[in-house]
């Protein structure tokens, strides 16, 4: 809402309060003033001039040579390029020495050999926004009414010595979508009176019912419809002061009748519509829901298809307006309009919102209906509009109002106690302070023993309950006066849940292990949604996605991590190691919330370790990724329950991928990207993993129990076993550990060899076995016996033989 300071001053005395101060006070009390703009934009030296002569410039087709009377001294010659400049016009002239917006100084000049002593201005040149300049002056200079005094300050006549406050209104404060509403707010803040405009109408002896009748078939959508007839109007420009106010409020002036309806809209917040009575096509107005297939051509000359969800004003046969949104072209007020039917109605919000949504048509009127108007002011606004049309369009107001009124004002009475106010706010206000605030708000109230009974005016539809009153009191009392305290309650310690605490440990571990945390988007494209997913379901699709790229909810974190890796690679960051913890979304059927499962995923590509001057350079490989996961499983105390098993998964290298099992369930995987997939994402050799985080974090882990430090020496024996090349080291190791129980405490693999020195199809795997007995020192014989047992076991299970 754009509020002219000078206009506002007509309803509330603003003496002693500058526009800036006012803006601060309004902001502090609850409505944000986004900016205060001085309309004069630092201009001066612009006067109203009279064009005495106007002829073609001798040397330029598009220029005119004008002789202009500026009300002082001799008339001056001014060269003007505007196509509409003409002899006899009263125009805005920036004199030599004048300053226009942007500190543009007007100097004496020669244009194509002809002297020019100033500049005849368009409204745009005077800082008026092009979209509000009246259409007839949009491409040329502005022409004042013929009675404008020569030599007078043009800026004053254009209402530009004014400041405009831009209010940013929250949806509850629709009351401030009107000057009167703002006036009440400002009056409450300043503790001053509100002066309401004059709305008395003098009527002729005819009666409106002889002209028109009104029937509302959808009273739920339109509880109140009122109208008046004004005859013998003369369509012409509205008074300049009115045009200036409309422009300051961001509305383009059209003609007197239309401008008056807009002026009332701004003043009362009550949208009006003026129909050309003679072109209505009947003597009745019927308000009803549109029929499917019905159409209307609106004022903007667009044919609109209607449905039963839209409300229309009809002449009994066909729509003449899309109710509350835009009038029809067929009954538009034109230059030859003689009789006007003014509509003042209360349309309810949902039906208007639907029309706005369906037709993409938002207007000053529809915005107000959507947010809710005050029906108690509807008829008053109508009266004022009729009065202004009589005054400024030469009209004659036909006696009486035609109306269909199903609206009953329901009084809103709220009681609130002083004690409640103070206990909710934590203040120590007195009865008198609260009473003063309510008085300033002009809320009628009674007070009895600290209990206030407040009669809420209909203009404040946002106030219905005790808390609303408390808020009014609080904001006008001033939040700066609110003390700062802390809740008084039993002190219970705060904490993370075990899951949250473990998840943080996991993060720190991964970061310590060299991975950076990424956060990627949850929305993805249908072609990526299920790739890499541990589990898949029917994708969950947005009803109205903004793009196909962000249309479904992801089922794996990996695709977007790959995107991030690729993004980095494209920017010369080739060594990438990222992890992400985030949800994937698995459908549980339509219209129910999906399962949201937390996943931990990672991507590693490029060099893992470089320390070149000492000759170290290690590319990321499968075992880098696996090593990180091994550490994670140890951290979580599940390492002994984890198994890696070779697996085949889409998008992954068939020979370099392992499923990760926790006890009997697959909880994740780790592997190298399939070369084709790598290429698709424009990556080099890349490793990924994804784990079901909840399964991991919720897995029971044993509490730490101290084990005595060895008191006796242990014995270490190495063995190198030759096996078929397809024997898995993991299985071999497990067999050794099993066979060596209980004396073999550690089995660690230290070498794998395959090559010339072994037969084809064979490999050698070497382990180091540590034997230990907590009770005593082991003898060579004891160790040898177990060692034999181990060898026998692996020979039996894997055909393993000791490497010679």
């Amino acid at each position, binding site marked *: 809402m754009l509020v002219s300071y000078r206009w506002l001053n007509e309803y509330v005395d603003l003496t002693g309060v500058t526009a800036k101060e006012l803006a601060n006070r309004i902001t502090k009390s609850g409505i944000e003033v986004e900016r205060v703009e001085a309309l004069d934009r630092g201009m001066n030296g612009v006067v109203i001039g009279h064009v005495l002569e106007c002829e073609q410039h001798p040397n330029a087709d598009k220029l005119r040579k004008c002789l202009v009377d500026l009300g002082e001294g001799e008339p001056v010659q001014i060269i003007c390029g505007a196509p509409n400049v003409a002899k006899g016009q009263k125009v805005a002239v920036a004199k030599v020495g004048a300053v226009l917006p942007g500190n543009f100084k007007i100097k004496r000049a020669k244009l194509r050999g002809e002297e020019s002593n100033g500049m005849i201005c368009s409204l745009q040149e005077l800082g008026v926004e092009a979209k509000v300049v009246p259409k007839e002056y949009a491409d040329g200079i502005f022409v004042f009414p013929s009675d404008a005094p020569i030599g007078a300050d043009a800026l004053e006549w254009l209402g530009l010595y004014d400041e405009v406050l831009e209010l940013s209104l929250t949806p509850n404060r629709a009351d401030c979508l009107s000057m009167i509403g703002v006036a009440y707010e400002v009056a409450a803040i300043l503790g001053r009176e509100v002066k309401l405009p004059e709305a008395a109408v003098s009527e002729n002896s005819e009666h409106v019912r002889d002209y028109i009748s009104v029937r509302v078939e959808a009273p739920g959508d339109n509880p109140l419809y009122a109208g008046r007839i004004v005859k013998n109007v003369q369509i012409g420009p509205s008074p300049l002061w009115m045009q200036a106010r409309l422009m300051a409020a961001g509305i383009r002036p059209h003609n007197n009748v239309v401008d008056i309806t807009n002026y009332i809209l701004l003043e009362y917040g009550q949208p009006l519509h003026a129909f050309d009575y003679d072109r209505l096509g009947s003597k009745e107005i019927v308000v009803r829901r549109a029929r499917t297939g019905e159409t209307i051509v609106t004022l903007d000359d667009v044919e609109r298809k209607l449905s039963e969800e839209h409300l229309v004003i009809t002449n009994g046969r066909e729509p003449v307006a899309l109710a509350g949104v835009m009038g029809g072209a067929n009954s538009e007020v034109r230059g030859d309009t003689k009789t006007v039917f003014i509509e003042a109605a209360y349309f309810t919000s949902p039906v208007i919102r639907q029309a706005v949504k369906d037709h993409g048509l938002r207007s000053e009127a529809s915005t107000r209906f959507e947010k809710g108007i005050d029906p108690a002011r509807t008829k008053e606004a109508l009266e004022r509009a009729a009065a202004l049309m009589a005054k400024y369009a030469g009209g004659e107001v036909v006696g009486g109002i035609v109306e269909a009124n199903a609206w009953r004002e329901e009084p809103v009475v709220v009681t609130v106690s002083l004690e409640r106010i103070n206990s909710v*706010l934590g203040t120590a206000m007195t009865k008198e302070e609260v009473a003063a605030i309510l008085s300033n708000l002009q809320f009628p109230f009674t007070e009895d023993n600290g209990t206030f009974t407040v009669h809420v005016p209909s203009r404040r539809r946002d106030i219905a309950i005790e808390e609303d009153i408390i808020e009014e009191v609080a904001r006008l009392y001033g939040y700066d006066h609110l003390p700062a305290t802390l809740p008084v309650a039993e*002190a219970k310690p705060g904490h993370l849940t075990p899951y949250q605490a473990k998840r943080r440990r996991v993060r720190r571990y991964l970061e310590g292990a060299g991975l950076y945390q990424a956060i990627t988007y949850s929305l993805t494209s249908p072609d990526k949604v299920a790739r890499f997913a541990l589990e898949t379901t029917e994708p969950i699709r947005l009803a109205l996605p*903004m793009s196909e790229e962000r249309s479904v909810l992801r089922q794996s974190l990996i695709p977007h991590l790959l995107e991030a890796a690729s*993004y980095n690679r494209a920017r010369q960051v080739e060594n990438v*190691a990222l992890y992400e913890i985030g949800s994937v979304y698995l459908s549980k059927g339509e219209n129910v919330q999906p399962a949201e499962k937390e996943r931990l995923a990672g991507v590693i590509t490029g060099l893992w370790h470089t320390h070149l001057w000492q000759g170290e350079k290690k590319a990321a490989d499968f075992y880098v990724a696996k090593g990180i996961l091994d550490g994670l499983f140890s951290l979580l105390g599940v390492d002994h329950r984890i198994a890696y098993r070779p697996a085949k998964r889409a998008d992954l290298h068939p020979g370099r991928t392992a499923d990760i099992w926790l006890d009997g369930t697959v909880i994740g995987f780790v592997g190298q990207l399939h070369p084709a997939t790598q290429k698709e994402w424009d990556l080099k050799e890349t490793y990924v993993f994804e784990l079901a985080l909840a399964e991991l974090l919720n897995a029971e882990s044993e509490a730490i129990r101290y084990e005595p430090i060895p008191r006796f020496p242990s014995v270490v024996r190495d063995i190198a076993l030759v096996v078929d090349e397809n024997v898995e080291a993991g299985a071999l190791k497990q067999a050794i550990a099993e066979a060596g129980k209980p004396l073999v405490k550690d089995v660690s693999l230290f070498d794998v060899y395959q090559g010339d020195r072994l037969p084809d199809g064979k490999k050698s795997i070497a382990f180091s076995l540590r034997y230990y007995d907590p009770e005593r020192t082991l003898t060579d014989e004891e160790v040898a016996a177990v060692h034999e047992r181990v060898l026998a076991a692996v020979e039996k299970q894997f055909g393993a033989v000791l490497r010679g």
Partner: protein
Amino acid sequence: MKERLYELKQEALRRIDEAKDVKALNDVRVAYLGKKGPITEVLRGMGALPPGERPKIGALANEVREVIQQALEAKQAKLEQEEVERKLAAEAIDVTLPGRPVRLGNPHPLTRVIEEIEDLFIGMGYTVAEGPEVETDYYNFEALNLPKGHPARDMQDSFYITEEILLRTHTSPMQARTMEKHRGRGPVKIICPGKVYRRDTDDATHSHQFTQIEGLVVDRNIRMSDLKGTLREFARKLFGEGRDIRFRPSFFPFTEPSVEVDVSCFRCEGHGCSVCKGTGWIEILGAGMVHPNVLEMAGFDPKTYTGFAFGMGPERIAMLKYGIDDIRHFYQNDLRFLRQFLRV
């Protein structure tokens, strides 16, 4: 004979002094103290002396031997020391060469901010509640006093999946969910961080996905002044002890009264700078007293219980704290960006 011994001593000491390495020193040792050495020879020749002289010369010879012995040892030690020093000098390295790098990753800046805020409120007795990102219309809107058709729904253009299911537009649904779990009995004291989604076109200041942290306290006798005190405490811990906060009246359907909360600018101490756009204040929170309808719908009696709620955007806080100029950085995962958030 006496003179001979003195002479030998002087000679030996001179040669010891001249010895350049352990081998030369050994030669000296053999030459003077060996079985065939001159001192032994002197002793052997003692038979020619009168018996009265013998003990004197014997003692002198032993003394000379002792002196030489000590000089040898001292020299030996010195030479060995020199050897060690030579060897160490040869082993010197360039300590300015780069160390073997330790790989270190770090948290995402949003996680830094969220965890810092979590910890700060945990310190004030809050617990951390998390909830679904795909919400029902009921929890996202209706339970928050935003019935269908409410004008404020315009404020948040949402990603619907079906008419009843949508991506949550704020973390506020956790208010209702948590209160319901408490079955009408306080106190409730939670903060809820999480991802939220809105139908915005991504640009420098908008992101269709972002994060929020919601806070909620419900108990008997919770006052709006408690909200002010709590948030002031929060602002001082997050932005520095000197900070102050101010409330500006605002509107949210789920709180009444509602306020927007500004923190005095931490860059300019409130004098006005580019961070606070010259106002000295930075808006960081929305807050208010929990609307009685919200309490009631979640099973709390608004006559007995009051509460406050607040919500903030970690992106905004991170942008302010670290001077980040574009919200898209948070979701591009450019390592040149992520790497900047290592320091504790």
